[in-house]
């Protein structure tokens, strides 16, 4: 019995209270256009599209940290690097789409380099890997300030995604690009699931996580395969950076923020679980956006705390995360 009854009951009550609270605030004056309904729809969509961005970034983290158990504290730096590389490419005349693909590949290559040069010698030694990647993150953060400056900048979405479309609800309009991110997150989730579930590569990654030495003695070059998985994880961080750099901004500090959000998503969802990462990202995105709007005025500044309340509640009820395997 890993789920503890008392905290579980308490957290369900908390969730129910939060839903009722938001529902009353949003639809307390009816569902008409004069009420708060339109605001709720926009806030919820903002939450879901932010969740999509968190998921894209954290899905790479769940692969690297959750599945391969490599403590990669430079994941946020790879996110920011991806965004800056894309920005640089766009400034040199490349289109947004090409910059997105190339930035993801370059970030993947940087991640692969870090893995092959620094991390694969220390497989299974969490503290060393954490310290090494913190060093990498610090160096990357400084170098990015040198090359890209400390002034926040952002990418312009491609022309075909730059408009808003009508939602057919309350005559509302919503940016196409934010909807595009939701679609991209769904595609990333589907592709990753298919790869891990059904390809030989996925089988080997799972086997290597279970028993690395045994996998190797079956003729499989495990460091090479893990290198490949690390490349994919880092490229996803870079992809997240391009998306994030387009709807939010690129600035020093974003790296820490996205490392933190990836950690929260993966820990809440459960290490190595793709479904967990999706649910964790959704919870985090919605809580951040909804709390900014629906918390009583005097608490608005404390909305960031709710993220950690989420973490505490989940860990109290299910220490292995919502969809994590018991170890």
């Amino acid at each position, binding site marked *: 019995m890993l789920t503890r009854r008392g905290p579980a009951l308490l957290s369900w009550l908390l969730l129910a209270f939060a839903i009722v609270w938001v529902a009353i605030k949003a639809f307390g004056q009816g569902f008409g256009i004069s009420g708060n309904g339109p605001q709720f729809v926009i806030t919820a969509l903002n939450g879901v599209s932010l969740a999509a961005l968190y998921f894209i970034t954290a899905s790479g983290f769940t692969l690297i940290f959750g599945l391969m158990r490599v403590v990669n504290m430079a994941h946020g730096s790879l996110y920011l690097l991806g965004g800056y590389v894309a920005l640089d490419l766009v400034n040199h005349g490349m289109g947004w789409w090409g910059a997105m693909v190339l930035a993801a590949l370059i970030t993947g290559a940087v991640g692969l380099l870090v893995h092959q040069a620094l991390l694969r010698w220390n497989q299974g030694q969490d503290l060393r890997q954490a310290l090494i990647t913190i060093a990498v993150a610090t160096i990357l953060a400084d170098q990015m300030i040198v090359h890209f400056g400390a002034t926040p900048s952002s990418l312009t979405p491609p022309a075909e995604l730059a408009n808003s479309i009508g939602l057919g609800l309350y005559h509302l309009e919503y940016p196409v690009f934010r909807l595009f991110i939701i679609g991209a997150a769904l595609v990333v989730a589907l592709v990753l699931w298919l790869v891990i579930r059904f390809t030989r590569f996925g089988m080997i990654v799972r*086997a290597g996580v279970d028993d690395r030495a045994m996998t190797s*003695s079956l003729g*499989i*070059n495990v460091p090479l395969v893990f290198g490949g998985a690390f490349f994919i994880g880092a490229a996803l961080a870079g992809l997240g950076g391009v998306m994030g750099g387009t709807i939010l901004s690129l600035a020093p500090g974003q790296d820490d923020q996205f490392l933190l959000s990836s950690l929260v998503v993966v820990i809440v969802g459960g290490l190595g679980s793709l479904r967990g990462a999706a649910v964790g990202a959704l919870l985090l995105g919605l809580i951040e956006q909804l709390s900014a709007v629906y918390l009583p005025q005097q608490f608005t500044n404390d909305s960031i705390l709710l993220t950690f309340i989420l973490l505490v509640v989940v860990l109290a009820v299910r220490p292995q995360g919502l969809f994590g395997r018991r170890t």
Partner: protein
Amino acid sequence: MARGEPLLEVTGLRAYYGSALVVEDAEFSIGTESVAMIGRNGMGKTSLCKATVGMAPPVARGSIRFEGRELVGRPSYKICHAGIGYVPQGRRLFGSLTVDEHLRMISKRMVRRGRWSPDAVYELFPRLADRRRISGTQLSGGEQQMLAIGRALLTNPRLLLMDEPSEGLAPRIVEELIETCRTLVSEGIGLLLVEQNLGMATAVAERILVMVSGRIALETTATELTGDIEAQRRYLGVEPLATPA
């Protein structure tokens, strides 16, 4: 005793865990035949197996030549490609993989180089075929052992290294295992069987190596050992076989 060219030739092999020496100047060679290695717990049998397939720890020094090629210092996956299949003590199946995935994860290059394909393994162990979709670790002990053997066979080895396959299995299952080993050897595979179960060891191999304190202390035959109750006591420390075969 070895028929033809030696398949595996071990000379001056030492293996360490840190500074603790667990295999000390082990020396033996085997051909394409079946050889059993017996010895009590903690005599270094599993360490010798691990050193042979390149699993670290322990750290191995000395020489292990397989078909003339030196194995010491080579990574585990290359040793498998060279043609040694490993069935480890305790099976070590993958909890996240189904039975079928255990077989499909082996590289096509190794599967194509010999007679063992997933279908051939299912033919050898029909009970596995009915349980394809089950997680490997949910099988019964006997089925787990079949899967561990099938997985090693898929790499199409010329030498199969089995570490205590009879451990924890019912006598009826051990009988089946003995049959399987005999079939494999008759098909021309080399077999090094590491066992504490003297019944199984002597049923599968005529040539017997006895390991004591990290060394090959004695080489004998199954016939001789089954008749020598005193030697059985000394080297295995268990009650001898009730009826010498």
